[in-house]
């Protein structure tokens, strides 16, 4: 298996799990709405709703950790970083992955596994309400999410190695970005002239990147 397909596979796993977990937000929204209706209109609140909400939200963000890492969307102080050359970035990254990321996430997996195993053994139920729903499956999310993030972290380190050797970052899977809204808003706008629309849509990603570097990449500093 060559490096590129190795990276694609791991990115694919993280993204698939992340995107699947992302749909929990629709479930959470529906659950909250139904509960609002039941509580405020029918005057019949549900006891386990607090736990159910938490489980959806907690599972959502934990399982999306690896997906976010695969998309390089975890917040980073990119003030200096983005103006460095790719080799320099990769060198720094791989060192910091080894020093901070691996021990941190390994500890999370280890501690999370213990935590979940104890909970599983005693068949723990939530103590928010009397006779609450089981929570051991929810606690299992911690080691699973940790393992996924670790897997993705390994892929990121491989990326760094590739970059160190070739001087260029390997590509990532294409995914929606925040700046895409520019295209959506302008695509069918009626009051903006054709030309500036096209330019803005074509350059949106480039503009985003340059702005994040705050002009350190040269070019814009006029």
């Amino acid at each position, binding site marked *: 298996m060559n490096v590129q397909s190795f990276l694609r596979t791991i990115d694919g796993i993280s993204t698939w799990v992340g*995107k699947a977990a*992302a749909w929990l937000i629709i479930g*959470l*929204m529906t659950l*909250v709405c139904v*509960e*609002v209706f039941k509580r*405020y209109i029918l005057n019949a609140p549900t006891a386990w709703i*607090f736990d159910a*909400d938490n489980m959806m*939200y*907690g599972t959502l*963000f*934990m399982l999306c*950790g690896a*997906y*976010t*890492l695969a998309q390089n*969307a*975890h*917040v*980073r*102080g990119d*003030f*200096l*970083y983005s103006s460095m050359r790719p080799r320099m970035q990769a060198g*720094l990254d791989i060192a*910091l992955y080894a*020093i*901070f*990321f691996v*021990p*941190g*996430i390994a*500890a*999370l997996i280890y*501690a*999370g596994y213990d935590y979940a195993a104890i909970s599983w053994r005693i068949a723990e139920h939530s103590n928010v309400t009397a006779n609450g729903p089981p929570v051991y499956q929810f606690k299992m*999310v911690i080691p699973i999410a940790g393992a996924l993030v670790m897997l993705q*972290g390994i892929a990121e380190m491989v990326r760094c190695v590739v970059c160190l050797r070739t001087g260029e970052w390997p590509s990532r899977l294409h*995914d*929606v970005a*925040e*700046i*895409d809204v*520019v295209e*959506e*808003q*302008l695509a069918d706008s*009626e009051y*903006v*002239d054709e030309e*500036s629309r096209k330019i*803005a849509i074509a350059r949106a990603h480039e*503009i*985003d990147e340059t*702005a*994040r*570097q*705050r002009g350190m990449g040269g070019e814009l500093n006029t």
Partner: protein
Amino acid sequence: MSDPALGLTMLMLIVVVIMMGFPTAFTLMGLGIFFGYIAFHDPTHISFADNRVFDLMVQRTYGAMTNDVLISIPLFVLMGYVMERGALVDKMFYSIQLAFRRVPASLAVATLIVCTFWGIASGLVGAVVVLMGVIAFNPMLRAGYDVKLASGVITAGGTLGILIPPSVMIIVYAAVAGQSVVKLYAAAMFPGFFLALLYLVYIVGWAMINPKIAPPLPEEQTRVPVPAWVRKFQAAYSPNMLVALTQALLSPSKAQEIEAEGRRLGYWMLIKQLCIALVPFVLIAGTLALAWWYVVIHQQAAPDAAVSGVQQLGTPGLGSGPATPAERGPPEGFYFWLGLCALAGALMVVRYYRRMDADRFEVLKLLTSSVMPLGILTVVVLAVILFGITTATESAGVGAAGAFLLAMQARTLDWKRTKEAVFLTAKTTAMVCWLFVGSALFSGVFAILGGQSLVEHWVLSLNMTPVQFMILSQAIIFILGWPLEWTEIIVIFVPIFLPLLKHFNIDPILWGTLVFVNLQAAFLSPPVAMSAFYLKGVSPPHVTLNQIFSGMMPYMLVIIVCMVIMYIWPGMTLWLPNYLYGG
């Protein structure tokens, strides 16, 4: 090395490593584990894995997973992403600009209003600056506006989004500071809109003093597109549209002669038009009714709702909130003020309808279709949170569902956009919450090592007055705002200041609100302001970065003025939370 010294090393290291550009969440976890391992190290334990730092880590993680404040983040974020895909900004801009066509610097005013609205909907700085750069910047330059004025209003307006509720920053601060989300929302309400108002005053004032910087638009750009059938309709009945529509409903024979949009005018069409014409009246009456309902009926339904009689500040009738201090039940002056507001509202409505010609009617139609759905949804979400009818989470859930409904009604939402909104929500939530997990571990270890108390002793030994401390803390946060994002500042650095607030008798809600406003200034300060670079990306080549920066400077001054006002009259910030939830 002693423990507190380790703590300080930890703080130093975190700053260094963040600057090196490693994902902050994992830096925090790694540092937390290392220093925690040393802090908890017990030589009597033989096994390597037998260290309580692991317990701390998993407890903190589980704590973030079951945090009942953070849970509203994905819901509000989803609402924002759906709204920004559902509401058409250029249509909004066009209709608002037509509505304000007689105001000086009308394009700049419209830009600011759209930015404020957008700020309510979502909190993205980059996207809004790029969008407004395309939609508003070029028209402003073409109309001969001063480059500084045009660039300043877009960059300053674009950053408003992170301040105006419902903003994710406020939720994160609430989770960090252990404050109530609704109180913080109520507190950020006035400063957010007050800042927008100050910007507005500044633009209009400057344009009035020096009309050259914002020449009025040429006639053909301000002409309202009135469809032919409206003209015929006016000729058939009356030049006043309200009168004409009412008459047409009573005697529809003449109206049925007129063709509109390929069909003859029917009853249904006429009723729809009349409903649109009545929107301003309904909005004003609804606001007053809501105020009356909240103060009179709602308070009686919940007599225990503690409300203290704080002295009234601000303009009565401003916004949708009730404007008089409420003791239990309807307070003394309430009916007087309500009557006054009703009278003023009635006068305005009568004046508006007397002069309702075809132009005004068309502008109203445009506004109703572009701005009103978004406006009503946000006002309802905020009102529901602020009046304590539901919790923040529940309002966020209902708000997100409402955003979906609106976008579907506007036919702007398809499967692809829904997917995008969901995936973006997942990424943003994961980013914020993983950062929270990391920082929860980090701050726990920092406190155990005694770094926190060392900082406290040091600051207290400086014998500062509260004002000095306030200025120092805000200055530090301002400087941190240059290289860092708000997430890192709120999650890592704000917790260091929080325990000190009690020593200086500073209200954490007031302090937090000042931080939010302060970060606005930090994000506008050259040469690190990202919004300037976003704007530069879409502007024509002759606009230089220096022009954009110098356009932003006055707005920084406005923000500092706003902060000074907020500090001198804390009542402006604290009145609404105190009124709604008691002291």
